[in-house]
């Protein structure tokens, strides 16, 4: 079969790339974050990987799985990042990274469904919980800041956040089970 992209203009391809990247950005970020447990590092890696993906987009075969391809590119950048960090103990060991990467790729579709289900769960949250999440996940938000503002210890805030997140995860599982996910 002739390659579909032979008839595509540059603008079409740029549009396709933008759309695919936008479509999978959150999943890709989650994938990288599962391997590199640092939000800022994960963002940097996805950004670097995105630039490389754009340059190599002509190598991407339309009709194949963009996310799988993007994960491969990102994984290469993760490994580079880990190598650069050397003896830094804030990263997982290489063999665990391999396992997590494999399992994360396999779970990508479900993860997307979970993010969709999350919206309904957030709506059911009580106002104080949503307020705390809003503060914790705001661009400049931090647990320490919340603790300071509320006169609580950081540990107490962590525990409260964990309780909220745990509740959300349970809610998400219920919703997915209702939709037939195992």
């Amino acid at each position, binding site marked *: 079969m002739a390659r579909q992209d032979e008839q595509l203009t540059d*603008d079409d391809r*740029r549009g396709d790339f*933008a*759309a*695919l*990247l*936008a479509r*999978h*950005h*959150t999943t890709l*970020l*989650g994938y990288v*974050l*599962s391997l590199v*447990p640092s939000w*800022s590092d994960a963002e*940097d890696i996805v*950004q670097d990987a995105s*630039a490389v993906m*754009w*340059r190599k987009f002509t190598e991407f075969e*339309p*009709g*194949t*799985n*963009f996310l799988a391809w993007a994960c491969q590119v990102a994984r290469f950048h993760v490994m580079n990042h880990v190598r650069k960090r050397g003896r830094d*103990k*804030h990263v*997982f*060991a290489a063999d*665990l990274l391999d*396992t*997590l990467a494999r*399992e*994360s790729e396999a*779970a990508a579709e479900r*993860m*997307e469904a979970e*993010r*969709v289900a*999350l919206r309904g769960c*957030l*709506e*059911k949250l009580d106002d104080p919980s949503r*307020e705390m*999440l*809003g503060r*914790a*996940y*705001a*661009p400049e938000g931090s*647990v320490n800041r919340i603790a300071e503002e509320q006169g609580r210890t*950081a540990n107490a805030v*962590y525990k409260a*956040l*964990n309780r909220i*997140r745990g509740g*959300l*995860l349970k809610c*998400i599982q219920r919703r997915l089970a209702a939709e037939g996910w195992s």
Partner: protein
Amino acid sequence: MSDLFDELAGRVLDGAASADDVERLDAMLREDPAARAEYLRLVNLHVALKTYGSGGGLTAMRPVDRAAAARDDAGSTGGAVPALLQNTRTEDGRGAWWRRGRARVAAVLLVGVTVAAAVMLGRNVPVGKVTPEGNIVRVGEFTRATGAKLAGGGVVVAGATVSPGELELVEGFAELTLTNGVRIVLEAPVKLDVPLKGDPTLLAGRLVATVPEGAQGFTVSTPTARVVDLGTEFGVGVAEGGGTEVQVFRGLVVTEWTSAEGGKRDQRLHAGDAMSIDHAVAGKSASAARDIPFQPERFVRMFPGAGSNTQPGGPVYNQPQVESVRVIPAAATGIRVDGDLADWGAAGAFRSVCVAPYDTSHFVEGRMRYDGGRLYIGAHVGDPAPMRSTVDPRAAKDEYAWRGGSVIVRLASDPKAGWPLDAIGTSEKNSKHPEWGRRPQDRSDRIVHLTMWFHRPTGKARLHVAYGMDFHGERMDPGGVAWEGAFREDADGLGYTLEYAIPWEVLNAAAPKGGEVMASQWTVHWSDRDGKLSRGHLVDVANSAAGPAKFSKGVTWGKAVFEGK
């Protein structure tokens, strides 16, 4: 999972983990597949919350979101995946990624990723669907957008691809151009389902569709009717109860519905026709149809609500294009102040418009005349909610006279003040210039702000006058002087004409001589339908070379050039 696992994973994801924490979590994950699955789910949740929270979406949920969630709870799985959690960023969603990575994003731009940049710069692209093979499913794209926000907070930008599914706009306007060339202007709040194949269904709100040659037969379905185009421009609205209104601006449409007797009915509508189809009565499947008067304003474009803009005047909707206004001697026969500019002549008229898509609905055509006794100001203003102001600064202290819709003309009535005008308000002062706003020229009695509006409760033309950049000496409807004002609403209800004659003594000036130049600036405010709040404004007659036009910076004012006889 154990509390310890939750604690460790939480600290890791919150960026607060020690090396020891990571090592312990590493050990747990290595040994237990269930822990890894749980960890991946937690990461996923974290990413979604972080994305959601970057635009304040966690703390600013709208009632409409709650309603949508309630429907989801009821088991509905129809419609598109909520864009917010899928692939859009919120209005302020540039977030840390953008801020920290600006340099690298710039590098990407340099390689020419024009469209990709729209995504990478954090703009929202409500694309949604990709086939399992990775091909994009596209039904159209947004070709214009103004203040347009999606349910959940995503911002619409021109150029964004639209994929099949439900599209809900909660603020502003967006123009969607389908792959068949049909242009649909959506006015929030509106909910439209655009399928991959077939025609869209309007679930709530209003749209105006323009159908090009070759796309005839395009159909908009609603809960009660089908509107089939035969080459035209038409508007369709779905009310809260589900009833449908159809109005044809150009061409011809056929509206189909099910009659009260259960039979299929249809009616041809030509340009200037309008009809409504009531929603089925509970327990019956039938609908009742009737003709209704054609009303242009039924589908007219209002500025979006205040939204996140906290400026009392609302956003500025234009780029100034006019630097000077010719002020022409009034005809010897005089000017009758009656809200009709027919006796003015067209000389010296200027036109200033708001940005698209408001350019045809929000504009001002201004004129100035003078004679030995008075300054004359005339204007025709395009305004979907004309002459609605209920504002009365006399009745409410600190109320802004301009707020309910108005025209403000500012003038430095002393020609010796020169142009550009060296006067500035205290709001502009800084540590380098603490004297700004306090200098004699800043407090001159010959800098005059004339605010003109129609006060609906009394049915009268009103005039508010203030002086200097400090707005001292305020006067409401100045007494003892022969000022006049008159308004007239346009026949189609989409604008108004104002006419004022103001004695020179109100401006603390004698009649100017031909050739004199006075600094001047015009501002027009548009209100909500209740005439209480300004939704946006236009500033023109401006010295654009001096930067953004501001009333408080005299140097940015344009000029009024008085012509000789």
